[in-house]
């Protein structure tokens, strides 16, 4: 049997079996769950080769599944992160209600993401896209909090995006008579200008929703923070990358054929830039670590979109590389929050402090991930950001550089807030009983964290597949041999000599780390938060004076005008207005039978009066 179809059968069968096994006691469902994630992933890594395809016909459409170099890069994210998060989830979800339902949706999500990457035709792309949407939706509402606001918002936005995509798909079908992505790419230059504009816009709306592009991002904070953390790591790490995946195809294969397509790129890149800034700013303001990470995800996705939007070889490479890195470190961070929440019962940065001694391994994972996120060498985040600056400057987007620079500086703030809030600072008696999370949770975190380091030192491991993928997209070979070794010990191609910078940054960072560690271990005065007196005033009993409280208040006073307008409010207003309107219009059903009879007669009379116009 074909391996491709086998993978999906195992996924689907595994999902159903796991769900059914949920009715039984014991660890059968856990075993089944891990097996049904593990086996297909292993099959994927061992038996799937690029170019292998599987075709069939259904409902009058031709279907084709296979993997391309580009989708292989993303499949690496999905498979790797999916596997790690699955191991994490088994432990994290223990003793929760309806675990089998969680497993079911988890497997379906992983399956559908792989399915999206496998799809060579638009129909199966859309089918898997929708399965991904509803399975992730069920995860968002899984914990039962705010389902009617957050959950519905997520689903509405997803549906709007998906339907925009569906419209594009049917228009493409009517124009080309084929559902194949390849035939779309081939015949796209021949479309009329209107269609050339319409199709990418519709597709970008679809992909933009999933990748939390600026005006379409409002679902993300709630959805990311409401899903179980074991899932959020996949949600933010891998699922949002599906939007990026689609965007790469659209930007590279379609938009470059439109006359004046560079304006498109500018707009997308700028939207990405704004997303990055706003996501970062909002992230700093959050006190809940989940929300913080959610906004941070939006911001990071903004970087990726900037890279993809600019579309020069270096920018594209940086975007794809950051996509991989983001999956790794954001996955880790969500897992960290999940672990802390599991051990302490809350994820609020203003409540939990000083866990460094209690949960050292978790701290280590968080540290790696935060460093990677902040873009400090030698971890992976740095490389991608560096490449992004390079490409932006190289393509004369100086204003965008400033924007990105601003947001990545600001990102330090929330990184610091996250790390300090949870792990450093005073050790409260309230959390003295907290223990390290179980090994099954810590190990996946550490693996991911270490891999950020490995990929930072040996970026060639992932840049080579990216390079291949970009070649199939039509880019020139980006000096592939340079990436074989680590960036730190090599020259950066023909760019400026960067060792001094790198070493300086590493030095500062190491100093900072040492300082922090020493401070953390030696100079910590063990008093509770309530004992602090600030400026001689004795604080009231209930006042919360943890470090994270009112973090960077003056900074926010400065940027407040930027943040005052929340797009969310417009959407809510619009939705409420529509509901009120519909609530009003449904009053045509007055309940009076006579009125209904009147409608009938009026209907006839109108038809009779305008019969020549209507039927003429």
């Amino acid at each position: 049997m074909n391996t491709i179809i086998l993978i999906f059968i195992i996924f689907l069968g595994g999902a159903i079996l796991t769900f059914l096994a949920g009715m039984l006691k014991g660890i059968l469902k856990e075993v089944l769950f891990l097996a049904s994630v593990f086996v297909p992933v292993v099959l994927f890594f061992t038996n799937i080769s690029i170019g292998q395809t599987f075709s069939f016909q259904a409902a009058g459409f031709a279907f084709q599944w296979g993997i391309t170099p580009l989708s292989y890069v993303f499949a690496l994210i999905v498979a790797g992160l999916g596997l790690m998060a699955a191991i994490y989830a088994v432990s994290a979800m223990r003793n929760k209600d309806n675990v089998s339902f969680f497993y079911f949706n988890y497997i379906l999500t992983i399956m559908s993401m792989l399915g999206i990457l496998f799809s060579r035709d638009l129909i199966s792309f859309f089918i898997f896209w929708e399965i991904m949407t509803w399975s992730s939706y069920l995860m968002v509402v899984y914990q039962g909090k705010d389902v009617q606001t957050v959950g519905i918002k997520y689903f509405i936005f997803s549906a709007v995006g998906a339907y925009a995509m569906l419209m594009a798909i049917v228009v493409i079908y009517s124009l080309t008579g084929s559902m194949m992505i390849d035939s779309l790419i081939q015949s796209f230059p021949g479309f009329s200008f209107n269609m050339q504009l319409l199709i990418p816009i519709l597709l970008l709306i679809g992909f933009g929703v999933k990748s939390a592009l600026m005006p379409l991002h409002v679902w993300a904070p709630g959805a990311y923070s409401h899903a179980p953390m074991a899932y959020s790591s996949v949600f933010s790490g891998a699922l949002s990358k599906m939007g990026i995946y689609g965007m790469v195809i659209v930007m590279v294969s379609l938009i470059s054929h439109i006359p004046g397509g560079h304006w498109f790129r500018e707009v997308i890149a700028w939207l990405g830039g704004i997303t990055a800034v706003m996501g970062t700013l909002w992230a700093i303001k959050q006190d809940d670590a989940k929300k913080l990470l959610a906004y941070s995800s939006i911001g990071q996705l903004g970087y990726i979109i900037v890279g993809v939007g600019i579309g020069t070889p270096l920018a594209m490479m940086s975007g794809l590389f950051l996509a991989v890195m983001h999956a790794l470190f954001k996955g880790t961070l969500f897992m960290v929050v999940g672990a802390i929440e599991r051990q302490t019962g809350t994820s609020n940065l203003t409540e939990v402090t000083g866990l460094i001694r209690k949960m050292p391994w978790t701290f280590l994972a968080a540290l790696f991930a935060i460093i990677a996120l902040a873009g400090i060498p030698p971890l992976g985040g740095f490389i991608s950001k560096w490449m992004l600056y390079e490409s932006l400057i190289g393509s004369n987007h100086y204003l965008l550089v400033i924007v990105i620079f601003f947001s990545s500086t600001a990102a330090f703030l929330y990184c610091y807030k996250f790390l300090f809030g949870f792990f450093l600072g005073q050790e409260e008696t309230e959390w003295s009983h907290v223990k390290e999370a179980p090994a099954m949770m810590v190990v996946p975190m550490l693996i991911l964290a270490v891999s950020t380091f490995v990929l930072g030192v040996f970026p060639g491991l992932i840049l080579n597949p990216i390079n291949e993928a970009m070649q199939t997209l039509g880019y020139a070979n980006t000096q592939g041999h340079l990436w074989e070794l680590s960036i730190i010990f090599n020259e950066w191609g023909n760019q400026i000599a960067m060792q001094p910078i790198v070493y300086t940054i590493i030095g500062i960072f190491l100093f900072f780390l040492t300082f922090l560690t020493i401070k953390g271990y030696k100079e910590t005065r063990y008093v509770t938060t309530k004992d602090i007196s600030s400026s001689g005033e004795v604080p009231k009993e209930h006042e919360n004076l943890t470090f994270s409280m009112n973090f960077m208040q003056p900074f926010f006073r400065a940027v407040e005008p930027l943040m005052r307008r929340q797009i969310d409010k417009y959407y809510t207003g619009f939705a409420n207005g529509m509901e009120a309107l519909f609530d009003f219009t449904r009053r045509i059903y007055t309940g009076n039978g006579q009125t209904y009879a009147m409608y009938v007669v009026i209907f006839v009379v109108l038809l009779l009066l305008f019969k020549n116009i209507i039927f003429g």
Partner: protein
Amino acid sequence: MVGSPVLLIAIPLLAAFVIPLIGMIWKELVRIIPGLVLAYMLILSATLLYYVSQNGIIVETIAGWQPPWGINLVFSPLTGFLATLMSALGFLVWLFSYRFKRNVDFEPAKKYFIFLMLLIAGAIGIVITGDIFNQFVFIEITGISAYALTAFYTGRNSAEASFKYLMMGALASSFLLVAIAILYSQLGTLNMADIASKMHTMNPTYKIIALIFFITGIGIEAEIFPLNGWAPDAYTEAPGPVGAAFAGIVVKAGVYAIIRMIFTLFDIPSAYDFLIVIGLITLIVAETSALRQEKLKRMLAYSSIGQMGLVIVAFGIGTHEGVFAALFLMLNHAVIKPLLFFSGSSLVFNSKEKQIAEMNGLGKRMPLMAAFFSLGAFAIVGLPPFAGFWSKLSVLSAAANEGLLLIIVLILIVSVIEIVYYFRVVNRIFFQEYSREKSAAPHRPRVNALVAMFVLAIAILVIGFYPDAVTGILHNASKDLLNTDEYINNVLQLGQSLTR
């Protein structure tokens, strides 16, 4: 040859007359016989459908007179498909309500089953008859059964709903009679094929007026927008399985009648555009009305009206793809909506007001029902990999092929609204806390009801995962509808004549 199409009508009528007698002997037979009859109808229509797909259209004459003169029944791929669908659904509705009013009086139960059987027989009659006045008679049979079934519960609201339905139904039959009068006065015939063949000789003014009265008359049954005031009330107040039968059977018959008029009888091309417009209005008004609905069944009713609007839009596209999509939608709607009605009415079985708010947290108490309801909700909003997706896709691609982009946009916007209200309910069922005071008490459905729901659920999954299981039949049926000349020839020259 296994039987003739007329048995699809004659046997249920015979059974309806037999049941009162036989009920005096053994009361259980009153419940069993309708089931047997419906099962027989299912088998018969399925076999005939197979026969038709192999050997071509069956034209059955009544009383031995050739079609322009005698009444004839046409069992073609299209009508056969609908008849099979209706009888299958009818059987499931019977199965679901087999133990209905079990512990109450005998009289109402007896009547319930008679009405149900005749409702289905009438709907099948509307579909397979080849004579407009005969169609009118069947519309009345369906109508009166429907009024009676709507008023079946003895509460005050059911009588109100039934009276509204009756008022509209009476207007409908008046308009239909006027239309029949115009056609007869112009063409001197009542046979559909004969009318279709003579239609070009008719003065366009009269033609249009007749069409308008036909559309209004049948439109009331088909729930197109300004004529569907009765529908939400009737769906709400009728027993749950009857709501399913309305959504799955009666409306389909109405839509079929309109479509037959416009595609076959009247040669007015602009009527297709009219179908699109009126379908869109129906779709939009119904779906937006469902958005803030507080009662479950009423929400399902509006949703059902909206779906029918979509079906009419798809028919209005008028191409093979459009008709195919419309039939696919009808099939899916006939599979999904009954599941929603069945599981929904089981969920709120113990509640008095049947409010959506009373469904909070029932997912944990009645997991199977909740799962069925969610499956239905997922399928009807068109999420893959369930049945509704394929039909939505085919509607959209049919519209795109004709370049009707605005329609696609509207359909998709409405789909988003549909998602909102269905998912609000699903959220309530699964992800909100059960409260003893506010939520409905859990109810344990009987085995027969479960079986009925299982069959529908499996059908949804089968169509979703393997749409090719039905597309062949649907393609045949849509070819049949579009080929007017063949219909006329077959009927007037007794294509696959039933003389033995």
